[in-house]
């Protein structure tokens, strides 16, 4: 699944292969085994874990103060003593800011997808399982959101709500609910048609039990794979909003915002000005490859 714009296009229907042993341990074990044998996924996972750990542990890493400005030490080039990645337009240490920047950038990329997964996933499963009028109502509302290109929706919502981290999280969550809901709905509708669901119904299982045991076990895989493929879109989009000045406010370190403020430096120190984008690029490419690896390991066809 790839970006629409970053993109959210759903390429065709996701196919579900029935696994009546709902969430059986054997399946997840084999997924884990396949993931461990996939070198690309392992390397990407290692890089991402390193990035996450570094941003969590940033205050304990003996880094320079990422907020400390200095009028005389502005725009030092790469490899300067004490500032091996140089300094930014206000003389702040670039290495420290890039590490600290990961905190907000990763947080703002992952959180909306997680929230949208919870909300959109529940709505989609509900729509798919109940069907009928409920399905109509939920899916027609989602159609309205689909009438907007995702970037436009995110920017218009953030623009109307005003800049700020919370508003960015809110608008990005709203952007990602419809696609996740649509995928969840389509896989749940498929699973609902399988014989073992009818069998469970005939044996008197409650709707809640059927969803928990039989539906979730079969739809969670495809939905999760799809959601992970959205994380890289979310990271780029979140950075993009901050780049426009609609997300994180200065002086917080955040990769998108840093790209924006360093734009004035492209004539003085071009390599430095491009550095925050490299971080976004690495993160997004790792998430994309991880998602591909997960898709292969879980045997989800999309």
């Amino acid at each position, binding site marked *: 699944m*790839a*970006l*629409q*714009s*970053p*993109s959210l*296009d759903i*390429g*065709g229907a996701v196919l579900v292969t029935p696994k009546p042993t709902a969430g059986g341990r054997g399946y997840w074990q084999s997924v884990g085994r396949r993931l461990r044998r996939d070198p690309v996924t392992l390397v990407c996972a290692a890089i991402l874990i390193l990035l996450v750990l570094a941003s969590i542990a940033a205050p304990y890493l003996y880094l320079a103060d990422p907020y400390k400005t200095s009028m005389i030490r502005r725009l030092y080039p790469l490899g300067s003593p004490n500032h091996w990645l140089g300094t930014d337009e206000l003389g702040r240490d670039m290495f420290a800011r890039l590490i600290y920047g990961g905190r907000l950038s990763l947080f703002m990329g992952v959180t909306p997808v997680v929230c949208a997964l919870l909300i959109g996933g529940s709505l989609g499963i509900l729509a798919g399982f109940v069907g009928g009028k409920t399905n109509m109502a939920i899916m*027609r*509302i989602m*159609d*309205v*959101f689909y*009438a*907007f*290109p*995702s*970037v*436009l929706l995110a*920017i*218009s*919502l953030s*623009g*109307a*709500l*005003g800049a700020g981290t919370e508003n960015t999280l809110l608008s990005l969550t709203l952007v990602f609910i419809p696609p996740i809901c649509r995928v969840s709905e389509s896989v749940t509708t498929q699973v609902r048609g399988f014989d073992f669901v009818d069998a469970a119904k005939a044996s008197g299982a409650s709707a809640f039990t059927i969803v928990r045991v039989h539906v979730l076990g079969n739809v969670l895989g495809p939905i999760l794979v799809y959601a992970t493929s959205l994380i*890289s879109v979310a990271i*780029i989009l979140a*950075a*993009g909003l901050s*780049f*426009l*000045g*609609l997300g994180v406010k200065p002086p917080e370190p955040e990769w*998108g915002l840093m*790209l924006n403020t360093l*734009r004035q430096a*492209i*004539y003085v120190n*071009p390599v430095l*000005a*491009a550095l*925050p*984008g490299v971080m*976004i*690029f690495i993160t*997004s*490419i790792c998430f*994309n*490859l991880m998602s591909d690896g997960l898709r292969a390991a879980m045997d989800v066809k999309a």
Partner: protein
Amino acid sequence: MLLYALRRLIYLVPVAFGVSLLVFALVHLAPGDPISAIVPPDAPKEVVDKLKEYYGFDKPLPVQYLRWLGVTLTGDLGTSIGTGRSVATEVGSAFGNTIILAIAATLFAFTLAVILGTSAAYAKSRIVDRLVTLISLIGVSVPHFWLAIVLVIIFAVELGVLPPMGIGPENSTGWTFDRAHLAHMVLPTIALSVIPLGVVTRTVRSTVKETLSMEFVTALQAKGMRDSRILLHVLKNAAPTCLAVMGLQAGNLIGGSILIETVFAWPGTGFLLNSAIFRRDLPILQGTTLVLAGFFMLLNLTVDIIQTMVDPRIKRG
């Protein structure tokens, strides 16, 4: 066929209604009331009330919505708070600039994607396939606004061969077909085309590969048909899917070019939207969003109908 198109168009009405509600809500999502954006905080209460009455903000929300909808349907999108000009005029001129860029990027991305995707699907050597997969992975993973900055750094700052920003030579606000304007288009077009390039290359590669494994290809080979003729058959079969994906991408280019337009100061809808957000020019924000969403809906509908027309396998149920 016509009936099918008509049915799809009717189906669009409730969605369009929902879109209008959402766009209307945009203004009321904004913190504070819409008037506070245009009057100084210490304005006397009478003035604020007068303005509220003038803009109709004193009425209950449903009444406001119906009034707004009625006026909008006549093509009147209101007046820009920032410039005092009509929103329709502002959006109209910006829209043209956005479309030109989007068409250029779409053509560039699609041509390259078909070449790359087809050669990857045909490639006997794994290297070509791997390389194309890598290109499409980079296409979907690269932050395109960063790529835009990198392109400016390389081609405008370091090499100095292409202009870094603007639509044309100084003070040019519209696009005309000449050398200078074309030169200004090169970098934005490339930056804008990376995402669709990545997405469509992936689609072309997998669709062509799938088609190649179908039995009719073997039959054609057995018949002794030349490879170039077979390619034509394969492409014809793969075309509907690829066109549909490209259509969606083209729509996203038009709605999503705001970041690229901002980097290059390209006077399109994205640039207009961005400046409207920072001037708190809500009528422009509303108008631009409405026009872009409307265009996106119509484009998706057109792609859908074209796909049904060229692909007899899709039932028109």
